[in-house]
């Protein structure tokens, strides 16, 4: 990992991986959409509205995965001071927030025909809402200080505090919602999911992951080059 601390090396690696990641993402997502929208069967009870699951669930997975990525990057940044780690955290955050937003809205759109209301205080949906605010706070920290390095460090610390809290938040919200939910709650993805429904889900999930990798690489490249730009501008000003 230390080898890729060198920005030049990282840029070359990123350029090598990027087309594959992007291609894989496009292929998997298109395949997933085809499987989900056309090939897979409608649900017995929910009809075609269940197809929303094929974007809602992978988006929720990614919302969590991106946050874990940020936490890992923050840890590496604070403990090993790897220079790229802060940039990874900064680049990943808006994408994670985007996935979270998609999870929330698609969850809402799925919930309305299923439960009759736009918002349900379902344990999962509510936890994701809290996660969304964790993302917003994280993003805000990067631009909250005059010195960008302080913003990076502050964001890293709070990301780690947040990740420790995340399971606690999820657990407490889940518990709260089950205690308050009427007994006849409909479990969206039941204990066993039919393989016909599982495959599009997995394909979309993998597609989203590849997408995240591709977009992340582009954004980190931009961060690396921006850092170089700032450094050069300082030198230039001194000239």
């Amino acid at each position, binding site marked *: 990992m230390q080898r890729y601390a060198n920005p030049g090396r990282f840029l070359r690696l990123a350029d090598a991986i990027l087309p594959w990641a992007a291609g894989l993402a496009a292929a998997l997502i298109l395949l997933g959409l085809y499987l989900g929208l056309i090939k897979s069967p409608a649900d017995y009870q929910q009809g075609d509205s269940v197809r929303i699951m094929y974007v809602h669930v992978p988006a929720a997975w990614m919302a969590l995965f991106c946050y874990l990525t940020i936490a890992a990057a923050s840890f590496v940044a*604070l403990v090993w001071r790897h220079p790229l780690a802060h940039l990874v955290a900064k680049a990943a955050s808006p994408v994670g927030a985007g996935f979270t937003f998609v999870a929330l809205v698609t969850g809402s759109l799925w919930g309305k025909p299923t439960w009759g209301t736009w918002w349900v205080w379902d344990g999962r949906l509510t936890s994701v809402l*809290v996660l969304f605010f964790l993302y917003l*706070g994280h993003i805000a920290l990067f631009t909250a200080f*005059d010195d960008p390095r302080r913003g990076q460090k502050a964001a890293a610390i709070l990301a780690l505090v*947040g990740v420790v809290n995340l399971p606690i938040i999820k*657990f407490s919200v889940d518990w709260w919602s089950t205690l308050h939910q009427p007994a006849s709650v409909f479990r969206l993805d039941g204990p066993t999911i039919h393989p016909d429904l599982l495959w599009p889900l997995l394909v979309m999930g993998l597609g989203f992951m590849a997408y995240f990798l591709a977009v992340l690489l582009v954004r980190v490249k931009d961060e690396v080059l921006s850092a170089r730009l700032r450094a050069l501008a300082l030198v230039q000003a001194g000239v």
Partner: protein
Amino acid sequence: MKVLLALIGRDLRLVWRQRGEPLIGVAFFLLAALLFPFGVGPDTDLLRQIAPGIVWVAALFAVVLSLERPFHADHEDGTLEQLALTALPLPLLVLAKALVHWLTSGLLLVLAAPLIAVIYDLPGELLPVLLLALLLGTPILSLLGIVVAATTLGARRGSILIPLLALPLFVPVLILGVLAVEAAASGLPARPHLLLLAAGLLLALPLALLAGPAALRQALDEG
């Protein structure tokens, strides 16, 4: 230990000089709780039902609004940097700040909560559970809040940033606190919830004493 007491004593004296501030916090707590009946109507049954939630939400807001205080003054006049330059172990400083913050916010809320319980006609036997839950939960808020405050020292929009960062982290405490009272209200034991709160407090301590100093160091290194 002596150092800790010295720090606590000093901070308490500073707060005493501006003793209006914690009192304003309590006033806000009471006011916020008072507003809800105007919003939802005077139906006593409804109010009795939502009372625990109201108390806890108001407590969260009151705590969050007071989080700028612990570090603000010291940071402004450079005392914080001085303290960090001495051999003072930062975890001790964080502990002192969190304790003083709790004494001047959380503890006061515990003392003021019975007033709200009266207004909302909360059954008398639920009051001890509510107070105990607040007693266990508000220190957690202070500990987590201190970390957030340290992280955002000198940030441009600190006063808005602190609530945004702290409130999501406070959610579990809020939930557990309300569940404890609601359990007692339905005749179930509140103990599991209270035990979880106690466990949370035991967890928050090392977390805050680890993250707080890290936050202070990054805040002071960059000046």
